[in-house]
C-alpha cells in the first residue's frame, strides 16, 4: 500500500474545557463532538461511524460510550464502536475509525472521549479480589500510582544524575505553555520553588510533580482524504500512523499495576523496551523519523515521565533528556517543544479523552492555530501515552 493511501484526514477537532464541572460525561462529550463537527463544517447527518472512548466509572452508559454519544447527538443510523485501552483509549478509538476509513467502509468518522472523574485518589473498586493485581498492589504493598511514577523518577536520578529541580523545571515549562490554552484547567505560572515546597508524595516526587484527575472531553472528525478534498479541505492535517502495539515477552520494565515483571532468563531481553517500541512502530508505519518531528505531546503523569518519554520517542539519546530540558530545547521556541498544550500538568488526566486531546493540540499546532502557544512552522507532530496492562499509543500527524 502506498504511503499516500494510508493517510486519513483530520477534518475537525474539538474539546470541552478540562476541570471539575460536576456534569455528566455525556454533556462534555457531545459538547466536544459538536465543536469538532463545527470545526470540520461537517453536518452530523454526514457522519457514518461513531467511535466512543469508553469510561469505566460512569455506569452502563460509559461502557457503551459510542452508542451513548450517538444517541445523544440523535440516532442517525451510523455504524458504532466503543474502544477501551486504559490511558490509550482515545488513540485506540482513533485507530478503529482510521482502519474503517482506510478499508473503504466509512467516509466520515466521529471519535469522542469524555470522562467525569471521582474526587480524590484513584483506587480500585470495593470488594476482595485476590486474583486482581490492581487490588493486590494496594493490599499487599500499598503501591499507589504515584509510587510507580516515583520508581521511574528515582532511576533517572541514580542513573543519569537528574535532580528534583529538573523535575520541577518540567512543571514550570508546562505551566507556562498552558497559560494561554483556553481548554486547560490550570492556567497559572509555577516556580521551581513552588514545586519543591509542595509536599513530597512519593520520594522524589512532590505534589506538583504529579498530575490531577479532571473532567474533560475531546473529539476528532476523521475523513478519507478524498472526502476532505471534495469538502474543500485541500491540505488537511493527516494521521500518518497510530501505534497500538503490545509488549514483546519478556516485558522487563516494572509496569503499573503489576507486582513484578516477566523473567528474561530464558528468552533474553527484547531489543527495545515496551515504551520504545510504541514510538518506533509509529515512525515505521509513517515512514517518518524522530529527526523530522517538530513538536510532541507526551503523557506527563509525572514531570519525570515527560523526560522518559522524550527518550522513548528517540527525540534524544537515553539519559540526555535533562540536558535538553536545561538548554530550553523542549520549551516553545526551542529545538523540539514538548507539551506545548501544557500537558497533563495543566489539564489533569481524563482517561478516555486524553489521547484525543493530544491529537487536538497537534492539529491546532500543525494548522498554525495554537494561539499564544504556537510552535512556529510545525509540520510533523507525535503523541505518546501508556495505559495499564500493556496498552500504549503513539499518533503521528503531519501536514
Amino acid at each position: 500500500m502506498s504511503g499516500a493511501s494510508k493517510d486519513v484526514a483530520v477534518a475537525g477537532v474539538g474539546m470541552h474545557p478540562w476541570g471539575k464541572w460536576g456534569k455528566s460525561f455525556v454533556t462534555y462529550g457531545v459538547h466536544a463532538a459538536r465543536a469538532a463537527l463545527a470545526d470540520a463544517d461537517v453536518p452530523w447527518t454526514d457522519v457514518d461511524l461513531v467511535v466512543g472512548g469508553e469510561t469505566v466509572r460512569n455506569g452502563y452508559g460509559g461502557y457503551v460510550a459510542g452508542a451513548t454519544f450517538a444517541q445523544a447527538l440523535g440516532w442517525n443510523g451510523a455504524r458504532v464502536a466503543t474502544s477501551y485501552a486504559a490511558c490509550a483509549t482515545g488513540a485506540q478509538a482513533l485507530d478503529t475509525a482510521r482502519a474503517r476509513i482506510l478499508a473503504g467502509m466509512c467516509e466520515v468518522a466521529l471519535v469522542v472521549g469524555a470522562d467525569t472523574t471521582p474526587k480524590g485518589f484513584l483506587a480500585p473498586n470495593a470488594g476482595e479480589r485476590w486474583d486482581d493485581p490492581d487490588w493486590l498492589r494496594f493490599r499487599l504493598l500499598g503501591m499507589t500510582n504515584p509510587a510507580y511514577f516515583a520508581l521511574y523518577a528515582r532511576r533517572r536520578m541514580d542513573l543519569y544524575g537528574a535532580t528534583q529541580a529538573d523535575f520541577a523545571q518540567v512543571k514550570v515549562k508546562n505551566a507556562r505553555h498552558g497559560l494561554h490554552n483556553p481548554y486547560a484547567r490550570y492556567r497559572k505560572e509555577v516556580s521551581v520553588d513552588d514545586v519543591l515546597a509542595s509536599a513530597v508524595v512519593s520520594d522524589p516526587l512532590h505534589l506538583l510533580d504529579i498530575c490531577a484527575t479532571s473532567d474533560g472531553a475531546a473529539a476528532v472528525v476523521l475523513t478519507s482524504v478524498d472526502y476532505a478534498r471534495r469538502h474543500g479541505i485541500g491540505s488537511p492535517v493527516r494521521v500518518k500512523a497510530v501505534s497500538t502495539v503490545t509488549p514483546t515477552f519478556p516485558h522487563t520494565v516494572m509496569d503499573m499495576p503489576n507486582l513484578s515483571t516477566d523473567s528474561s532468563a530464558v528468552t533474553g531481553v527484547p531489543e527495545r523496551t515496551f515504551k520504545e517500541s510504541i514510538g518506533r512502530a509509529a515512525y515505521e508505519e509513517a515512514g517518518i523519523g524522530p529527526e523530522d518531528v517538530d513538536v510532541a505531546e507526551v503523557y506527563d503523569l509525572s514531570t519525570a515521565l515527560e523526560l522518559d518519554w522524550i527518550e522513548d520517542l528517540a527525540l534524544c539519546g537515553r539519559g540526555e533528556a535533562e540536558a535538553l530540558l536545561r538548554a530550553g530545547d523542549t520549551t516553545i521556541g526551542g529545538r523540539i517543544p514538548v507539551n506545548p498544550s501544557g500537558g497533563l500538568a495543566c489539564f489533569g488526566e481524563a482517561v478516555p479523552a486524553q489521547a484525543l486531546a493530544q491529537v487536538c493540540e497537534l492539529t491546532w499546532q500543525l494548522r498554525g492555530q495554537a494561539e499564544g502557544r504556537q510552535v512556529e512552522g510545525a509540520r510533523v507532530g507525535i503523541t505518546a501515552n501508556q495505559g495499564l496492562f500493556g496498552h500504549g499509543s503513539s499518533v503521528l500527524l503531519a501536514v
Partner: protein
Amino acid sequence: MTAPAIEGWFTTGADPALLGTRCTTCTTVFFPKADGFCRNPACSGETFEEVALSRRGVVWSYTDAQYQPPPPYVPATDPYEPFALAAVELPEGLVVLGQVAQGYGVADLRVGQEAELVVETLYTDETGDRTIWRWKPVVELGEETDQ
C-alpha cells in the same frame, strides 16, 4: 496466630523466599505463580512446578509512601507511618516489588545496591499478625548498624 497476608506466595522459615512457578516446557520462571498457560509466546506449555526464588537481588528502583494509601491497603499503625518501597531484580531475570524492611528508608537505598528478602508483619487483624515479604538493604561490612 501469625499467618501470611496472602497464601502460597512466600515461605516463612529462617531463610524465607518468594514462591514462583517454573514452566516445565521452557523453564521460564513466573512470580506471582503462573498457572494454566505459559506466557512465553514461543511456548505452549501448560504445566508448572513450584520454585523458590533467589533471596537476594539488586535494587532496580525505590520510593516511599508518604501519605496513607487508600483501601484495600490496611494501615499497620494509627497515626499512619510512611514506609519505603523497592523494586528488586533477581538473578532469575525478573523484578519484584516489595515494601522495604522496617527501619530502612529511601536514604538507605541506591539503584544497583544489593537487597535481601525478609518476612515481617504487614498488619494485625482479629486473628493475629499478617506477614509479608520485604526487601532489606544489604549494608556493606563495617557500615552495618543495629536495626
